[in-house]
């Protein structure tokens, strides 16, 4: 399991906070910006948010665990989202997940040991006409077959084997 990184550079948190008035309604947006910048919500950053908005840490944690876009653990550099919406599901998204699991030794919700990939399933990315679909960071891959996954992942620098040695 990946440990929370210590001693993050918090200067960017301050500049994120500066963009928003001190009102509770901006909490979700603030947390999303932090998530985007750091790939997760560092504990120290949450402390800053608590002080800025005057909201108890417990409320921040309930937000962080409720919304899927937020995470308390670092995500991979490349976030692989396999769509498991209905259209993708009946066109074989589970086979894609099996293939990725095999190639990267990672299950949905986990991060690879080297921290480069995280695998997630999402409930529909709205590209059902291309089902099954996989999104890596912001790039969409449609009409996939399990056999195509290996080459796509190779484009991001690694499949198992050449990557164990790294």
């Amino acid at each position: 399991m990946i440990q929370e990184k210590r001693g993050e550079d918090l200067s960017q948190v301050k500049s994120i906070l500066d963009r928003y008035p001190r009102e509770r309604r901006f909490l979700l947006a603030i947390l999303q910006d932090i998530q985007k910048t750091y790939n997760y919500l560092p504990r120290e950053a949450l402390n800053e948010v608590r002080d800025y908005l005057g909201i108890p840490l417990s409320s921040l944690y309930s937000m962080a665990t409720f919304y899927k876009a937020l995470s308390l653990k670092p995500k991979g550099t490349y976030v692989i989202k396999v769509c498991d919406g209905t259209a993708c599901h009946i066109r074989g998204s589970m086979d894609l997940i099996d293939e990725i699991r095999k190639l990267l030794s990672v299950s949905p919700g986990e991060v690879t040991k080297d921290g480069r990939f995280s695998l997630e399933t999402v409930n529909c990315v709205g590209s059902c006409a291309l089902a099954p679909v996989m999104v890596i960071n912001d790039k969409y891959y449609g009409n996939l077959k399990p056999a195509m996954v290996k080459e796509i992942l190779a484009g991001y620098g690694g499949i198992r084997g050449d990557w164990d040695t790294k």
Partner: protein
Amino acid sequence: MTGTPNNSGKTVLVCCGTGCLANNSMEIYKELKKRVEALGPGFAVRPVLKTTGCNGLCEKGPIVNILPDDIFYCRVRVSDVDEIFEKTILRGEVIERLLYLDTSTGRRVRSHKESEFYRRQLKIALRNIGQIDPASIDDYIERGGYNALKKALFEMSPELVISEIERSGLRGRGGAGFPTGYKWRQCKRVNSFPKYVVCNGDEGDPGAFMDRSIMEGDPHSVIEGMIIGAYAVGSKKGFIYIRDEYSLAVRNVSKAIEDAYSRGFLGRGIMGSGFNFDVEVVRGGGAFVCGESTALMASIEGRVGEPRVKYIRSTEKGLWGQPTVLNNVETWANVPVIIDRGADWFAAIGTDRSKGTKVFSLVGKVKNTGLIEVPMGITLREIIFDIGGGITGNGKFKAVQTGGPSGGCIPEALLDLPVDFDSLDRAGSMMGSGGMIVMDETTCMVEVARYYLKFLSEESCGKCTPCREGIRRMLEILEDICAGRGQEGDLELLLELSETVKEASLCGLGKTAPNPVLTTIKYFESEYLAHIRDKRCPAGVCRKLTSYRINTDLCRGCGLCAKKCPAGAISGKPGAPHIIDVSSCIVCGTCREVCRFNAVEVIGGRSE
């Protein structure tokens, strides 16, 4: 470049909806742009190049449409760009092989408007999509955009706007079909300020992307609708809540808001009237339950998105306890057209109690997947077989799922059902926001029910025990059935739990959660029984209950299955029937999919 080509007034539309983008349409746009820019100053009338939102025909993307001749090219590749530019854009010639192939007639048609897919449709909410550049407010205005706002502000009282919407019969497109005009009137009556208008763009149903396409492809139609609504109910502030996964929609709507401000359609003294209105975008956080109106409002307030009891309606106490009108994206997009063309025009479309059109995302095992807009009252059969072109491959229709996780599966016997709010309700499903997922005989209905309950158990916010625990228990039973551990009495237990979950949950998520289970039991009971009693999955989906066998009479020994088998479980000599080694078979179904002779048969499960 030689000669004096005839290029007067050509507009080239490159579809940059999510589907086409994934198929590389941005590259095509860039390549075309390079060639247009290289034309030099000698051209009096230069071709105009635009990116558009989703055309709906995602299956055939990337799409390039050339106006005014309306030449519609499908599945365009970057390597086709030179030819398109030289022949069609500069010389007006048609490239036959890129034209749309109408599957129903087998002919290529020049304009997609001549195709079966398009001919049956009627575009109101999608009126501009595919025709305009969503980033250009001028494109929107050129097609009559913001006319309705002008009419409302200067020729109509707020009261008249509301009665016009009431008379049109417009009902909420988000799923429940609540009468929009009535909702507005309720909000207007409350004498408490400020009031808010909200656009629900948290489209979370798996298999649905109507709202996404509208926000991406024609954001101004939503904004204009909201300004009109705000004027009618007396609100000065609006929010557009957009699902976190829809980054392009967030970008396009934000840009549209900026442009609307700079042209005086938003802000103080809109269009020189005394009316002020501001609107901002709120990004969702990735929680399905936030599509529920009260949960969505909690989320806008910066809280966890849990629904609340609704004995006081949001029109009285909504956002921050103030009167709030919340409508879905598609509903808002309908508003300007109704004001512009009048309630009578709108009310003449559709059925007695469901007026106008509905946008559906037609997906799954159907030939023409994509986005369609049809008049209410059209039958499911027309949608799936005429517009959708029927089932992919040699498949046979089994069911169509409507209404997302809250909806149900409708069998073949009910295909002639008219599509409107009330008919679908009576069949045990619902209109929902408009996802329509077609399933064929390779889809297991028990597994589909399991799939939806898995989804719902993850998305339940946990506030109500019947929803949080009930769905989970139902899921466990379904998982057991799919894994071959089903037993007598399971169906009765599922029905009993369904009743409690429906009855005792607070919000729509729990109240409708059992629908996928109830409709599949109602219409496909024999499939459940095959799983429970015979330990067999007739569709060949549940792996524990499936094994494959090659029918030696049908197998020609082509070897394709052996080549494609990822487990290396198939052997045989060329020309002779092949054999599957059951012990190494992983039941992935690849052999069945690739076999051209239908020689791979599904038989019951392996003994454990």
